[in-house]
């Protein structure tokens, strides 16, 4: 029998709903796994065992009376340490924030709790979700980075130390660590998930999102955290989110759920410097999609695409400088070198250049919308290769940056492993607010190529 800690989020939730497993049993099993592997993986910035045990007991009592708070009743989750958690230190991976204890939860954290999740603790982030690495290691190869900035969330999930997690992406911080750690990560459309209570890196590029071990698990989490929030104006004009998990189940039950889905293969950019084994895995993934009945075709990216990526970097640096300028004035030496360079150069970008970069963004959004009228999703590699060796860098976000810039949804699903045993991911991106489309495509792919079922050899 599968140990409870190794169950997927969906299977664990169903076992609890049917009374075959209690929240206390699931938590005990998960804490046991943490005790075994965390000393090597270092995914957690802080664990909240006592609070988690108290909550699991309360949820077990409720379950014994036939009461269930929601879809996550009794499910242990991890939260990236830039999400505010009431009464729990939120240090953002930086000594500058050490000792900061928020008085209220981020909207996303509050929604997880309301749905019955058990908050196990805060997962490591790179400093302020930028590029200075955290201590977290890749569970598939401990000498390799788990990616970043949602490093601990990806590592904890891969190592079976939680069943779901929150991450955030400004350039590539959900999709890249998901790919490096062999899990699933979804960066929603900008505005789909509230940013309230998430420490900003760059306001117009920040996307909170769900991470888990299977596509369906990510759909369950997205359903809970998505939707309007008066605390984040970007969420208010968005269409209502569908019931992702139920819709996924319904589409999955249809034998030809993704038949005739039009999949676009970009003509350039995503293949520059691509690792040969990652390229092989990507080509194999595209053939799998074709075998599922998808209509795969080449698409030409707009001429403006590369300028858009330059615009992304400028906007990123300027907004990060604006976020940090007041603290930087007195505490510059406490910043990591990578974020420090981002802030210092962001301060020197002329204001008209920032505006021009946002105009380039408007244009590229229009042109990519037009491109996505000809195809339903784009399929690309999720990273330039497997997780790089060493812990000094979290790898390159170059494959994910386009969709952070555009605000379009994207997802990473594992699509293979290198000869050295490192996971490689497929990235699927879609039209604004059509998360369901990329979830369905990813789920069909996952069913045909079940790489998500494998656990790292810890």
């Amino acid at each position, binding site marked *: 029998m599968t140990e409870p800690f190794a169950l997927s989020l969906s299977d664990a939730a169903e076992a609890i709903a049917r009374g075959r497993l209690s929240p206390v049993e699931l938590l005990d099993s998960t804490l046991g796994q943490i005790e075994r592997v965390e000393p090597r993986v270092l995914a957690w910035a802080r664990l909240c065992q006592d609070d988690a045990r108290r909550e699991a007991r309360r949820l077990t009592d409720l379950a014994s009376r036939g009461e269930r708070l929601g879809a996550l009743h009794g499910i242990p989750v991890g939260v990236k340490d830039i999400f505010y958690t009431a009464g729990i230190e939120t240090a953002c991976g930086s000594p500058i924030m050490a000792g900061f204890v928020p008085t209220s939860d981020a909207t996303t954290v509050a929604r997880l709790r309301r749905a019955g999740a058990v908050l196990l603790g805060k997962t490591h982030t790179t400093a302020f979700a930028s590029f200075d690495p955290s201590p977290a290691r890749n569970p598939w190869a401990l000498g390799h980075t788990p990616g970043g900035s949602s490093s601990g969330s990806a590592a904890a999930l891969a190592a079976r130390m939680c069943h779901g997690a929150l991450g955030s992406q400004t350039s590539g911080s959900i999709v890249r660590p998901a790919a490096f750690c062999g899990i699933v990560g979804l960066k929603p459309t900008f505005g789909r998930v509230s940013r309230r209570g998430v420490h900003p890196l760059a306001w*117009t590029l920040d996307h909170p999102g769900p991470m888990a071990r299977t596509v369906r698990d990510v759909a369950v989490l997205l359903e809970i955290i998505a939707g309007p929030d008066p605390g984040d*104006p*970007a969420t*208010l*004009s968005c269409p209502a989110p569908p019931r992702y998990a139920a819709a996924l189940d319904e589409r999955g039950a249809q034998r030809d759920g993704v038949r005739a889905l039009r999949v676009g293969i970009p003509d350039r950019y995503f293949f520059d410097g691509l690792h040969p084994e990652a390229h092989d895995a990507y080509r194999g993934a595209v053939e799998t999609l074709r075998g599922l009945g998808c209509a795969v075709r080449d698409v030409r990216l707009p001429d*403006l695409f*590369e*300028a858009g990526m*330059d*615009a992304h*970097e*400028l906007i990123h*640096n300027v907004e990060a400088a604006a976020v940090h*300028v007041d603290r*930087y*004035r007195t505490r*510059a030496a406490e*910043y990591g*070198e*990578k974020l*420090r*360079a*981002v802030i*210092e*150069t962001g*301060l*020197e*970008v*002329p204001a008209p*250049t920032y*505006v*021009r*970069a*946002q*105009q*380039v*963004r*408007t*244009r590229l*959004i229009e042109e990519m919308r037009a491109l996505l009228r000809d195809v339903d999703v784009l399929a690309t590699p999720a990273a330039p290769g497997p997780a790089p060796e060493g812990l000094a860098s979290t790898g390159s976000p170059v494959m994910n940056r386009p969709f952070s810039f555009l605000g379009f949804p994207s997802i990473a699903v594992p699509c293979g492993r290198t000869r050295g045993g490192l996971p490689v991911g497929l990235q699927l991106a879609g039209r604004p607010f059509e998360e369901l489309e990329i979830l369905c495509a990813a789920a069909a792919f996952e069913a045909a190529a079940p790489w998500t079922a494998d656990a790292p050899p810890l």
Partner: protein
Amino acid sequence: MERDSSSVARTRALLALPEARGALYDEEMERTRRRIQAVHRARVSQDTEPAGAPRLQPDDD
């Protein structure tokens, strides 16, 4: 594009920022210079509204 050191110094003085720069500054500034040039080379018409404009909702009251 050459960096105008006096305008940079003025900005830093205005914002009361420290003079010292980090070890990766030069490397990142070189990339930033290239990006600034690339963005200004991109063709964008004057009536293109910059992304990030206000998202307004009617008042509840």
